């Protein structure tokens, strides 16, 4: 048997040659004729000739970086890391002896197409904006918390909830109340985890604590005298600030004595303080002001066109999903129920569930645009949408804010407008189809029409906007 091989490693100093040597030795022991091309820091040595490749029965690529395979089309090609060749060269060669190695470039059309797509994706991923990479990292760790929290709350609301003037309430001493609290616990971690793992993606482990602390501060308005936290958008901001500060401190040159305590002591403490204080004293306080401003602005809108108000409320409810803007709109609607204007809450109740329903639908329709864990999050989002937990769409919005937030806002605006036009009224401060099930909605037909239209618009718009984005294979 005759083989050719290429070895290569990141620095091109050691592994390249150890792998080559090991392959040579293993081949010699088996009586296999092998030619190994080394692509190291010296450059390419022992370059494979056309004739050598043509007469070879197989190709071993033991490389930690991409090697062009086009010249090996039609040959069995085995791709491994350089370390694999060092550690188990024998096994690799046995795979050729047993004819277990797949021929490169002779796959079925579909397989090959898939491979080209994957390679393209890999290329795009490498070129991908690092901001998106950090966001995706945060989102992937946040998703389990959203799913656990959202589904537990959804189950306890739908099975143990009662419709009261104060919204859907779960009797305090009931079993479902405990489940609801567990769900609430998971939700509390959502923003800190998002921020923490964004920061960790930027600055490695020293970024984790600053990110989580920053995220917690962002999510808890009490730190900066606000009724509402800064929501997931605040969490994203906190994560990036924490991460970049930690990375910046990491690059500061320090005396050797201090070096060992940098990653566990100095960087986390300094970065946590920095991000926490920035949030409390610089970013946080305007949030309270913005909320007040928005509230009085909304109150001033009361006399104007109902439809316009529905559009504005739909946009506000969906903009930050649980953040300050959403909260202002929600409290506004809730307050007006008691003033005899339940139509305002009707528009909000319709808009509130379109982000999770819409993004859930979007991820079901076009799986290719969504990573594996996003697809799972999509299914959970549908369940959350049905009971009016708008947070279900946060993973999507956090991963790709510039495409997703506009989509869900337009969807929410449509739902709000339709509900207003149809005279939908909601007598409890809660949203989503579940409210209709509890009999708190007037004009149920228009309520569902508003939700369905809003959901479909959200889904279509999100997938159209995402066309320009390729998602990594999970």
């Amino acid at each position, binding site marked *: 048997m005759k083989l050719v091989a290429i070895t290569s490693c*990141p620095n091109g*100093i*050691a592994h390249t040659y150890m792998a080559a040597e*090991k392959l040579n030795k293993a081949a010699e022991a088996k009586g296999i004729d092998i030619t190994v091309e080394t692509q190291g*820091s010296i450059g390419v040595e022992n370059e494979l000739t056309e004739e050598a490749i043509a007469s070879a029965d197989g190709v071993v690529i033991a490389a930690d970086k991409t090697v062009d395979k086009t010249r090996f089309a039609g040959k069995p090609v085995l791709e491994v890391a350089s370390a694999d060749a*060092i550690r188990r060269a024998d096994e690799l060669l046995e795979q050729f002896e047993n004819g277990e190695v797949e021929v490169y470039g002779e796959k079925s059309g579909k397989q090959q197409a898939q491979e080209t797509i994957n390679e393209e994706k890999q290329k795009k991923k490498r070129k991908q904006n690092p901001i998106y990479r950090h966001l995706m990292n945060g989102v992937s760790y946040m998703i389990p918390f959203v799913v656990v929290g959202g589904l537990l709350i959804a189950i306890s609301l739908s099975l143990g909830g009662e419709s009261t003037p104060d919204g859907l309430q779960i009797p305090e001493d009931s079993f479902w109340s405990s489940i609801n609290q567990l769900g609430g616990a998971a939700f509390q971690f959502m923003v800190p985890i998002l921020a923490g793992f964004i920061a960790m993606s930027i600055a490695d482990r020293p970024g984790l604590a600053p990110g989580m602390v920053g995220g917690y501060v962002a999510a808890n308005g009490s730190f900066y005298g606000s009724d509402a936290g800064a929501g997931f958008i605040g969490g994203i901001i906190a994560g990036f600030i924490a991460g970049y500060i930690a990375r910046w401190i990491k690059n500061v040159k320090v005396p050797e004595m201090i070096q060992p305590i940098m990653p566990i002591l100095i960087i986390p403490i300094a970065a946590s303080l920095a991000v926490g204080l920035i949030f409390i004293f610089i970013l946080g306080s305007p949030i309270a002001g913005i909320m007040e401003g928005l509230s009085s602005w909304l109150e001033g809108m009361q006399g104007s066109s109902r439809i316009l108000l529905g559009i504005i409320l739909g946009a506000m409810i969906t903009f930050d999903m649980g953040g300050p803007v959403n909260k202002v709109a929600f409290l506004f609607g809730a307050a007006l129920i008691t003033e005899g204007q339940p139509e305002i809450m009707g528009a909000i109740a319709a808009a509130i569930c379109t982000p999770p329903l819409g993004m859930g639908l979007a991820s079901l329709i076009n799986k290719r645009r969504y990573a594996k864990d996003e697809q799972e999050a999509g299914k959970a989002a549908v369940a959350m949408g049905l009971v009016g937990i708008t947070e279900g769409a946060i993973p999507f919005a956090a991963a790709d804010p510039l495409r997703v937030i506009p989509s869900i806002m337009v969807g929410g605006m449509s739902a709000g407008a339709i509900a207003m036009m149809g005279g939908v009224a909601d007598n409890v401060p809660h949203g989503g189809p579940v409210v209709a099930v509890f009999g708190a909605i007037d004009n149920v037909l228009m309520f569902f029409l508003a939700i369905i239209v809003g959901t479909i618009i959200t889904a279509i718009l999100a997938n159209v906007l995402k066309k320009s984005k390729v998602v990594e294979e999970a």
Partner: protein
Amino acid sequence: MSITQLIDHQLIELDLAGDSKDAILQELVELIAENGALNDRHQFLSDLQKREQESSTGVGFEIAIPHGKSTGVDETKIAVGRNLSGVEWASLDGEPVQLVFLIAVPAEASGDEHLKILQQLSRKLMDDDFRNALKQAETKDNMLNTLSQID
């Protein structure tokens, strides 16, 4: 050029004090620094650690070859350390490491003779007899003699 231009008595430690990966990296970087081949040992150490993070340089057979191309290095040098009781190195085969070859390479070096020697060393390390001789070397002279089998 021969390997003796990259390593000498001063760069060999037959009984490493360190019993962890980090301690040994520090110890060997110190040897090279004393030799005068570094201009910035922090930079070099951090480049080494960066390389370790990409994948462990514990290649199995009880050896590890931490190596870095770094702006902190002026001159190519090799430091050899031995700890016969074995040190955890996250090796590919899970075995503890007894022999550590720390390789310092300047980020930009003229010529590639030194790289050829490192190549020879890497290849030679795959040879069982060569490794055993290094493990059994009783003096620094023994070890240098074994190493100078590399041409």
